[in-house]
């Protein structure tokens, strides 16, 4: 029996992803280092969240500074569902994710209709307003003292594999959202909503769909986080720096690229463990400096850097095939080109 893949899936890339996942799935049995195990688990969640942020911020160009709202809602709904209904983990995460996705639609549906930066500004408000309401809504979130969840013995260890599956699914979805025909539609919406609508792309429906997917995936991450730490608190779950961290992961890795944000999440975790942990009072400044530097010098982040190096080494393999450039105009031409490559 021959497995038939959709034409936009490149077998080599699918196999590559499967191999990486298989290695990561077996890795804990080999290294047995608990610290590294936990760090990897959280990295996977970071990867899933950064990718989900990128669907909206990168593929559609609607940067969100308030995704922590959905993270927190996913987390608290999951916790409440687990506590009161006794649902098992996965269904509880799904419920949390769906509620978070619906919440995103409530405020996102109207603001996504507008051109320009309205959505981004609204997200700052959503993040703050949700955090405030959550902090004072004692009966739901437990107020500033938070919520505790029962913790089963070995659960934290096994959650590594759940996190891996979540990250792999998010990566698969990133791939599908970019390479499938729908990816082209998203690209069209990002470039010019009116032109896209003229050629029959349903901008409204697709934007809402991506927003829901992004919000619910972040919500599932929040639910996972709640189950993983078995204690959550509104100030942390809805925190502004949480929203910023996903922006940063996306920007470092390459905003709008398929796997860039995953890379960004890995770099971010390394950075946090090695730099920010020692200078906690500088973390906002470090985040800001990174944002400024990446946007100024390599708007596509690490992916852009790789593309550039790759392009120089093997021009015949670069995106768009060999490009013959007049020597004098190289600098001027290559800048817009990287922009088009995403």
């Amino acid at each position, binding site marked *: 029996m021959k497995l038939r893949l959709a034409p936009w899936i490149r077998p080599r890339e699918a196999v590559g992803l499967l191999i990486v996942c298989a290695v990561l799935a077996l890795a804990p049995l080999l290294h047995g280092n608990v610290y590294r195990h936990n760090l990897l688990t959280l990295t996977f969640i970071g990867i899933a969240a950064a990718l989900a942020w990128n669907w909206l*911020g990168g593929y559609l160009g609607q940067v969100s500074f308030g995704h922590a709202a959905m993270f927190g809602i996913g987390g608290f709904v999951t916790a409440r569902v687990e506590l009161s209904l006794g649902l098992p983990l996965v269904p509880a995460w799904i419920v949390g994710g769906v509620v978070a996705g619906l919440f995103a639609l409530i405020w996102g549906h109207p603001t996504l209709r507008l051109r320009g930066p309205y959505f981004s500004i609204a997200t700052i408000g959503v993040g703050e307003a949700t955090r405030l309401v959550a902090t004072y809504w004692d009966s739901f979130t437990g107020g500033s003292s938070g919520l505790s969840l029962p913790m089963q013995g070995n659960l934290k260890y096994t959650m590594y594999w759940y996190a891996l599956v979540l990250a792999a699914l998010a990566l698969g979805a990133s791939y599908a959202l970019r390479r499938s025909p729908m990816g082209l539609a998203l690209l069209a919406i990002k470039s010019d909503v009116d032109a896209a609508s003229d050629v029959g792309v349903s901008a409204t429906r697709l934007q809402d769909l991506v927003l829901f997917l992004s919000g619910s995936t972040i919500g599932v991450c929040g639910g996972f986080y709640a189950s993983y730490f078995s204690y959550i608190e509104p100030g942390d779950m809805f925190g502004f720096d949480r929203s910023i961290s996903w922006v940063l992961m996306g920007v470092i890795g390459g905003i709008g690229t398929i796997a860039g944000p995953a890379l960004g999440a890995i770099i971010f975790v390394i950075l946090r463990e090695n730099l920010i942990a020692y200078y906690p009072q500088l973390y906002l400044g470090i985040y800001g400096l990174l944002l400024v530097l990446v946007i100024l010098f390599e708007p596509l982040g690490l992916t852009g850097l790789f593309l550039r190096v790759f392009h120089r080494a093997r021009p015949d393999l670069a995106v768009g095939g060999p490009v013959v450039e007049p020597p004098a105009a190289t600098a001027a031409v290559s800048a817009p080109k990287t922009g088009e490559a995403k």
Partner: protein
Amino acid sequence: MERFFELLIAAVLLAGLYSTMAYGLGLIYGVLRIVNLNHGGMIMAGAYAGWYLHHALGIDPYVSLLLVTAVAFGVGIVIYRGLVHRLPRGAAGGVQSLLLLFGVWLIVRNVAYLLFTGNDQTLRTSYSTKAIAVGGALLSVNRIAVFGVAVAILAILHLVLTRTYVGKAIRAVAQNPDSCTLVGIPVERIYALTFGLGTGLAAAAGLLGSTLFPFNPSFGAAELLKSFVVVVLGGLGSVAGTAIAALILALVEVFAILVIPAYLTAAVGFVLLVLVLVVRPGGLFGQRVLG
């Protein structure tokens, strides 16, 4: 009924500050099509500058206002020339400028945190607690002064934009930068100037605000949002539109205290923003570009 009048006057006085605050954001957006996310950072920086000059050197905030605004004007030009200027214009540049200026804001916040710690500060002057009675209601002298200065700033701006060559150039660039190049207006210089002007206004508003509210390094986030509400409500750059929109926001905020718990008032501006975006995305008075 007396309470009603008190709240009404409080709202009007607050609206003066809000319109100055919002005008800086609207000016930059109207001319450069860029949302200055560092607006909140400059509001906060203005507040700290006023507080520091008063606290350390004993300079009255209304005296230091001119100095702080001028310095912030320079800072704005530096930010434009050094950073914003390098970004591509158009759709791709929109996202990039958002992220870039957001990064600048984070840096400014961190610097303020390092310099002044995260504690709340208040600017107290000898007249902070003075009040005069107007028609049975007690009015804080400082609030009236803030209102007066804010109105004066807006009036001067309006005159500059409508009567001077530079002001007309700014409005022309807002309408069509390409045509401006054709008739010899130095568009890049107007952009830098406008960015400086908007930044200066933010700092001025921050300084005025510091005499009314306690502030810390994260001061400015809510103010950025409020400014944006006013800009969306009032349309771009219209002084009258901005003033009316600021008044609406202030009225809604002040009277919301009567019906909802105090901690939720911070969310009022946001709810208003979403409502306006849904009902009248072009603003209350349609899209007007500066003047």
